[in-house]
C-alpha cells in the first residue's frame, strides 16, 4: 500500500508537469480561479486555452488520436486532472461537448461526421450543449415529450427543453426526442444532434437563485433536422441517452466552493464568544464530521485511481462523491456564515471576500445537489446498481407513453 506512481505514471506526470509549468500559472490557493471574468471573456480565454492544448497534443486525453485526442489511458487522464487542478486555467465550456457529446458521436455518427465534428470539438472551436431535461421530465428523463416527426429525409421537432447549460453560446447540441408516443415509454425515443443556429430554436436564459444565468430554456418550433443527424436507430434513443449519462457522471466532479480547509482556517482565526471559534466544542464537533467526509472522499478517490492504475474499472462507488460533497458544501457554507454572526447575511457582491465565498457556496450547494442526478436519484443508483436492490414498483410500465398519468386532473 503506497501512494507512489508506477515508473510509467511518474514519467507521464513529469511530462505533464513540464508542459503545464511552461504554459500556465500556478494557483495561489484552492479557490484561486478566473471566476471574476465575464462570460464572454471567459469563453474567449477557454477557446484559446483549448487550442493551445490541441496544438501540443494535450486535448481530450481519452479520445483516439485520429479524432484529435491523445489516446491516453484512464490513469493518465487522472494524472492530468490532478496536475492541471494546481494551475489557474480557463474551463467550464467544453465538458459537455468533450465529455458527453464526443463519446456519443464516436459510437453512433458516420465516419464523415466524426471527421467533421470531433476535431473542432477537441480544439475548442465549437461548443456543444445537452438537450435532455424538460419541464416535465427531470429525474424521470424518459418521460420527455419533445416531439419528432419524420417526413421524407427530414425530422420536424416541436417542444421544450430546460436546464440546458451554455445553450446561449453553443454551436451544436445533442437532443433526445419522442418519435412514437404510442410506444412504451423507453421505446419511443430518438436521439439527434443539431445545429443550434437552426431556424425555430429559441434560447431563453433562466435566472437562478444565485442571480446568475448559466442555463436556459430551449424552445423548438418546427425545427428541421436531416435524418442523417440521427444517432442510433429510430426508437433507440434511450439506449443512446444512457451511454451519454454514464459519461456525465464522470464529467460532473466535486462540488466547488469552501471545503474543510477553508472552514478550518476560518475557525482558527474567527472569534466566538471571546475566544477563537476553534476552541469551541460545538465547532470542533462539526469540523471533525466534515473532516471525516473530506478525508473519506479523498481516499475513496485514491482507491478508485488505484483500481484504474491496475487496469481495473472502478466500481460505481464513485457515485457517493456528489451526494457527500454537495451536502457537505451546503453545511459548511451555512456554518461559515454562522461564524460571522448577524453580519453573515450581508451581501456585498462588489468585493471578492471570504464572506461571499460562503454565500456563493450556500446557493451553489442547492444547485449541485440537483444537477447531474439529484441526491435521491443517486441514492437509487447506489441501492440498485451497487447493492442490487430491486427497482421501485412503477405506475408507467407496460402501457403506451401517451396513457401514462401526468397530473391529478
Amino acid at each position, binding site marked *: 500500500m503506497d501512494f507512489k*506512481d508506477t515508473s510509467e505514471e511518474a514519467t507521464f506526470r513529469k511530462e505533464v508537469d513540464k508542459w503545464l509549468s511552461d504554459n500556465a500559472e500556478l494557483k495561489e490557493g484552492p479557490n484561486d480561479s478566473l471566476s471574476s471574468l465575464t462570460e464572454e471573456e471567459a469563453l474567449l480565454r477557454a477557446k484559446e486555452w483549448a487550442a493551445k492544448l490541441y496544438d501540443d497534443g494535450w486535448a481530450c486525453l481519452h479520445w483516439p488520436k485520429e479524432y484529435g485526442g491523445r489516446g491516453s489511458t484512464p490513469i493518465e487522464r487522472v494524472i492530468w486532472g490532478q496536475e492541471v487542478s494546481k494551475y489557474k486555467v480557463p474551463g467550464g465550456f467544453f465538458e459537455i461537448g468533450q465529455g458527453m457529446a464526443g463519446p456519443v458521436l464516436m459510437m453512433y455518427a458516420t465516419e464523415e461526421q466524426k471527421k467533421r465534428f470531433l476535431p473542432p470539438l477537441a480544439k475548442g472551436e465549437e461548443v456543444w450543449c445537452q438537450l435532455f431535461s424538460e419541464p416535465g421530465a427531470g429525474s424521470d428523463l424518459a418521460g420527455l415529450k419533445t416531439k419528432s416527426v419524420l417526413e421524407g429525409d427530414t425530422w420536424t421537432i416541436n417542444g421544450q427543453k430546460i436546464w440546458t447549460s451554455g445553450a446561449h453560446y453553443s454551436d451544436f447540441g445533442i437532443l433526445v426526442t419522442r418519435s412514437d408516443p404510442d410506444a412504451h415509454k423507453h421505446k419511443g425515443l430518438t436521439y439527434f444532434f443539431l445545429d443550434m443556429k437552426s431556424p425555430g430554436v429559441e434560447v431563453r436564459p433562466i435566472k437562478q437563485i444565485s442571480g446568475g444565468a448559466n442555463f436556459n430554456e430551449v424552445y423548438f418550433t418546427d425545427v428541421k433536422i436531416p435524418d442523417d443527424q440521427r444517432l442510433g436507430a429510430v426508437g433507440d434513443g434511450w439506449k443512446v441517452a444512457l451511454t451519454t449519462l454514464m459519461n456525465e457522471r464522470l464529467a460532473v466532479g466535486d462540488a466547488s466552493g469552501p471545503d474543510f480547509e477553508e472552514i478550518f482556517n476560518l475557525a482558527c482565526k474567527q472569534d466566538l464568544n471571546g475566544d477563537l471559534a476553534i476552541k469551541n466544542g460545538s465547532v470542533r464537533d462539526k469540523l471533525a464530521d466534515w473532516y*471525516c467526509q473530506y*478525508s473519506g472522499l479523498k481516499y*475513496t478517490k*485514491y*482507491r478508485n485511481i488505484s483500481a484504474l492504475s491496475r487496469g481495473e474499472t472502478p466500481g460505481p462507488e464513485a457515485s457517493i462523491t456528489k451526494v457527500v460533497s454537495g451536502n457537505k458544501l451546503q453545511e459548511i457554507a451555512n456554518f461559515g456564515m454562522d461564524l460571522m454572526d448577524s453580519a453573515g447575511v450581508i451581501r456585498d457582491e462588489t468585493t471578492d471576500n471570504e464572506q461571499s465565498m460562503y454565500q456563493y457556496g450556500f446557493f451553489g450547494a442547492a444547485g449541485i445537489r440537483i444537477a447531474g442526478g439529484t441526491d435521491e436519484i443517486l441514492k437509487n443508483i447506489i441501492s440498485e446498481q451497487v447493492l442490487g*436492490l430491486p427497482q*421501485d414498483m412503477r405506475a408507467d410500465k407496460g402501457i403506451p407513453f401517451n396513457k401514462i398519468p401526468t397530473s391529478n386532473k
Partner: protein
Amino acid sequence: MNFEFSSDQMLLKDQARKFLEGEESLKKARAILEGELSFDESLWKSVVEMGWTATTIPEEFNGLGLGYLELCVIAEELGRSLAPTPFSSSVYLATESILANASNEQKQKYLPKLASGEIVGTLAHTETNTAPTSNNLQCSFSNGQLKGKKIAVPDGDIANFAVVTAKEGEKVRLCIVDLETKGVEIKTQNSLDPSRSHASINFNNAEAEILDNDKDGWIALETLLERAAVLFAFEQLGGAEACMNMAKEYAMGRFAFGRPIASFQAIKHKLADMFIAVELARSNCYFGAWALSTNAPELSTAAATARVSASEAFNECSKENIQTHGGMGFTWEFDCHLYYRRCRQLAANIGSQTIWKDKLISSLERSNKI
C-alpha cells in the same frame, strides 16, 4: 498509485473470513452473551493456532514478524464475525504497549507467550465515568507497588496481566501487573455486550513493574491508543458492513404490501446511506492502515479520522439494521442486537466519540496540514 491491500493481504482476509464463518463465530458470540463464560476458549485457541496473536511480534520473540496491514485485515474479519475472544485487548493494547515501550527483558518475558496465546494481556485505564486525564488519574504507583481501582477493563477477568496507568508522584506511568499476583482483586462486571467481558480490578499494593522505560507515560499511552484506534476502527468497519449486508438480505426477502420492502425508496435510501457511511469509513481506515504500517507523521490525524468515521458507520448501520428488520429486529432471537451491543462496546473501549473528535481537531491544529 497503489492505495489498496495487496493480493496476499486480500487472500489472508478472505481466509480469515471463511475461517471465522467455519468456526461459527457469530453463534459463539451469542452463546457467550447468553451463558456464564467470559469468552469462547475453543475459538480463542483456533485464533491462536492461526497465528493471528503473533502477527506483528518479531520473529526473535517467536512471532511472525508480519506488518500492520495484515493485522488490519484480520481485525476487519474479527469485527464482522463478532468473535467473542480477548483479541483486541491482548493484541492491539497489551502486545502493542510492550512492543512500543518495554525493556528487552520484559519483551523476552511477555512477547513469546503472547504470540503463542499462553497468556492474555489487557489495558486497565478507566477509573470512573469521567474520561481519564493525566490529572484525574487516582491509581498510584510507588516502590514497585500499585494501589487503586480500575473499572470497565476489557477482558479484565480473562487476562493474565494488565498494563495499568498510574501516577508516580506527578508523573504518569504505564505499569505492568501480573493479575494472578497478591493484592489483585478482579470482579466481572455486567456490560451492554456480554459477548465481550469486562471487569473491575482492585490493586491493593500489588507488585508491579514500570513499562514505559522512563518515557512520558501519558504520551506513551496516547500513542498506544492512536495505534490501537486504527485496529479498532477495522473491527468497527467489519461490523458496520455486516449490518449493512444483514439489512439488505432481510429487506430483499421480507414482503409487505405485496412486494419486497427492499423495493421501497425509504428502505433503499436507508441502505444507500449505510453504504455511504461504510465506504467513507473504509477509505479512512485504509489511510489509517497506511499511516500505522509506515509510522507516518500523519498517524495522529489518520488514526482519529479512521476511529471517528468507523464509529459513526457502525452506529449508523447497527441501528438502521434493527430499523430495517422492524419488530423482528427488536427480538432477542435475531442477531441485530448482537451488533448493536458490540457497536457500543467498541465505541466505548478506547474512549468516547467526543474525545476522539477532539483529538482529531487537536491533531489538525498541531500539524498545520490538512
